[in-house]
């Protein structure tokens, strides 16, 4: 399935990319699956997205938990805890 991935703030800098639109393998059905798949890239991906690291994920612009289901063309944003205001 194709998903649109967005990265913000420190994660955008560490991943050296603001967005990508990868074709994910068939076993990626949930957000947790997607994160596993991204961690398999190793390096900063494995490090920054490790379980227990503080980052947030929004699917279609809503903050979601890790068990959220993913669908074709979903917009998935991964970013550090917010610091506005």
């Amino acid at each position: 399935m194709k998903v649109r991935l967005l990265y913000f703030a420190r994660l955008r800098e560490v991943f050296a990319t603001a967005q990508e639109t990868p074709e994910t393998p068939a076993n990626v059905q949930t957000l947790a699956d997607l994160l596993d798949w991204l961690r398999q890239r190793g390096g900063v991906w494995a490090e920054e997205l490790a379980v227990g690291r503080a980052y947030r994920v929004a699917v279609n612009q809503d903050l979601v938990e890790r068990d959220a289901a993913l669908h074709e063309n979903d917009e998935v944003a991964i970013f550090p805890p917010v610091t506005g205001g």
Partner: protein
Amino acid sequence: MKIAVQTEAFDLNAEVVALYQANPKVGAVASFLGLVRDINEGQGVSTLSLEHYPGMTEKALAQIVEDARQRWEVLDASVIHRVGALRPTDPIVLVAVASVHRGDAFAACEFIMDYLKTRAPFWKKEATPEGEHWVDARESDDHAAARWGR
């Protein structure tokens, strides 16, 4: 209701007046202004860059205001958040809430700020004479939001 994310400065007076002038039911407007602090305390000028997630930001802010409306009697509200480059004493965020009575106005205004701090996708990067760094999220902000319950 007004939600805005902008680089320009805003006019506190104009925003607050807009909340009450056309509605003689309004007896109370509570407002909050968040400002860039000079955390270096004079050790050279620091600047702050604010980044956000266009689209989600406006959606998140509108949802936070809607949550406040469900809890308190809110007649009108404005949330304006700046992005881009800011300097010490520059206003960053304005939240203003109009209500019949002050208790609702104060509670809704503080609730919106607490939720904005933990749920609206903004990030601050600070530049000091020693270099740049992303500002860390504060645990106290999570506590402030958590005290409102769900």
